[in-house]
């Protein structure tokens, strides 16, 4: 996984609360293979009308938001289904960071596993960021080392689980870490067979 340290990029406002993973990628696209790229399905039913034409006043469709890598939204972003496809859609579209006052837990952990930073800000700061973006500002600077967001001369702090911060900063993959614990896992299983045989061995 590619490490995430600092990012200066264009940002797009998404002034909605509870943008759930069903919105991020509607269920009907989830049969597709990832190799097709999931970016085309991102927020599909918000971005396109029933004929498939882009909805002109949807923020992501504005020409000045093209190439955005940072998304700013309201509370409870990524709630709902555990579908990692929601993160694939954001990442394949080009996003590397989502800023919001709160995130669905599973979504946030899926994000980190794909190098996408879920940055938590206060509700007031989210409102201010949204209004800065809606009033002519385009570029946002995100610094994961210092947990700071900057837009022109405005500075906002953000929060993220320390464990996730370390993982993103280093671009770590859990599997490498787990492999180094193989002997501990084997020891655990051996002792659990004694203590909880019904968990380690099924009848029949």
């Amino acid at each position, binding site marked *: 996984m590619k490490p995430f340290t600092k990012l200066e990029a264009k940002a797009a406002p998404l002034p*909605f*609360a*509870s943008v759930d993973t069903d919105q991020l990628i509607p269920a009907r696209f989830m049969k597709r293979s990832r190799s097709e790229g999931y970016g085309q399905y991102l927020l599909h039913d918000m971005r396109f009308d029933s004929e498939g034409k882009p909805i002109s006043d949807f923020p992501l469709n504005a020409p000045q938001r093209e190439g955005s890598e940072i998304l700013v939204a309201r509370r409870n972003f990524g709630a709902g289904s*555990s579908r990692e496809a929601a993160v694939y859609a954001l990442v394949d579209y080009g996003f590397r960071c989502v800023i919001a006052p709160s995130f669905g837990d599973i979504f946030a952990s*899926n994000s980190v*596993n794909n190098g996408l930073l879920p940055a938590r800000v206060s509700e007031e700061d989210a409102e201010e960021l949204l209004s800065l973006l809606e009033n002519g500002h385009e570029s946002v600077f995100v610094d994961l080392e210092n947990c700071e967001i900057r837009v022109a001369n405005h500075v906002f702090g953000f929060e993220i689980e320390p464990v996730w911060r370390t993982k993103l900063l280093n671009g770590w993959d*859990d599997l490498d870490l787990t492999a180094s614990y193989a002997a501990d896992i084997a020891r655990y299983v051996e002792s659990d067979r004694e203590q*909880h045989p019904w*968990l380690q061995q099924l009848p029949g």
Partner: protein
Amino acid sequence: MATAQGPLTLFDKVWRNHVIATQADGQQLLFIDRHLVHEGSFHGFNKLKEKQAKVSRPDLTFGIVDHYAPTKVRDLTRVDPAIAGMITQLEENCRQNGLRVYGFNDPRQGIVHVVGPEQGITLPGATIVCGDSHTSTHGAFGAIAFGIGASEVAHVLMTQTLWQKKPKRMRVRFDGKLGPGISAKDMALSMIGRIGADGAQGHAIEYAGTAVAGLSMEGRLTLCNLSIESGARCGLVAPDATTVNFLRGRPLAPKDEIFDRAAEAWLSLVSDGDAEFEREIVINGTDIAPVVTWGISPEDALPITGAVPQPEAIGDEGRAAHAREAIDYMGLRAGMALTEIPVDRVFIGSCTNSRIEDLRAAAAVLSGRKAMVPGLVSPGSSLVKQQAEQEGLDRIFIDAGLEWVDSGCSMCVGMNGDLVPPGERCASTTNRNFKGRQGPKARTHLMSPAMVAAAAVTGRLTDVRDLMGGRA
């Protein structure tokens, strides 16, 4: 790390039993006792193939066909090939890796969170994961059960472990006794309406109190199922005699003296009297009325006696904007009584409310009556379907004018093609009223099975208590 001594919660006890290693930053490596996979788990299997790895514990991994299962045509050659492909792909992945599979044609097939408890795969004190957010359901047995993403599915497939940071502990106590016609669904929606859809984020909820102890396993499963809709990582209920009796004789539950030994261990899984919770809320069960959702998030929940909110009356800008968006999407008027809202169809099913008790509750209201609108009833598993038919519930649904179909996720998520048409309004026993969840532009009102049955009978949202005279 120094392990916490002193009083422990139920959650602490189960968690502690599964810790293999602890990192300096607090991450812990947990052993996973049960891993459930379904059609949507293909990204996880693909990662496994990329690494040319094998499933670490095929004996603890279970494949179940549900998300894409057609419910009206039980023949894969006669359905959309893309849907059939999802099903055969799972069955194939399971076969290649030597997993137990409850496939499309298996008489035990059903929704993963219904089949797990039914087969005795779900046990108290276990850690259970699945690439599905409603895995919290299994916490009803006093297990730590939570949904995971595809990267984590791959990790569990390869190692039977998962790195996790321990969530905070929260207790939700439901005191008193529920009124007639009130179910676990009303308890859960009342809680979510009160704390918000992100109200329990980062927490593991233990449900306690007399109203919880009084619930059947079915009710507890519904309650824990909806934990995720409050943002919680998982929900648990301490095992008791109800739990043990439910498990005795289940195909994959322990047998004979191992069962007795297990049951003794399970019954010790209770929070110590002086254990501390980071958060605690108390809800009076006696005060709970039937609840429905009016908006596009499960937190948009109100007693059926209420009215659609007035956005101008909401002080907070973000929340007022959400209410306006919800009213607009749902095609409602601010201030209208909830009982004035007409419905176009109903759905009874999903891992939230498709067990035998749910079907009985709906049938009790529908018996001898006609539905004013079309609707679908999809039992949670093929075994539930069989039992319902033995009890004659299928006749009640069919005579009322509803469709009695096979088991699967069906109209909960619409992946199998069971969809609410655009613009239509559905009274639904499911768990998510998100925009487009039941189909593009579909409008969903969540409620209990009895409340859905009542809406079917009158064609609008209805207080089921008005239809209960002398029933159930």
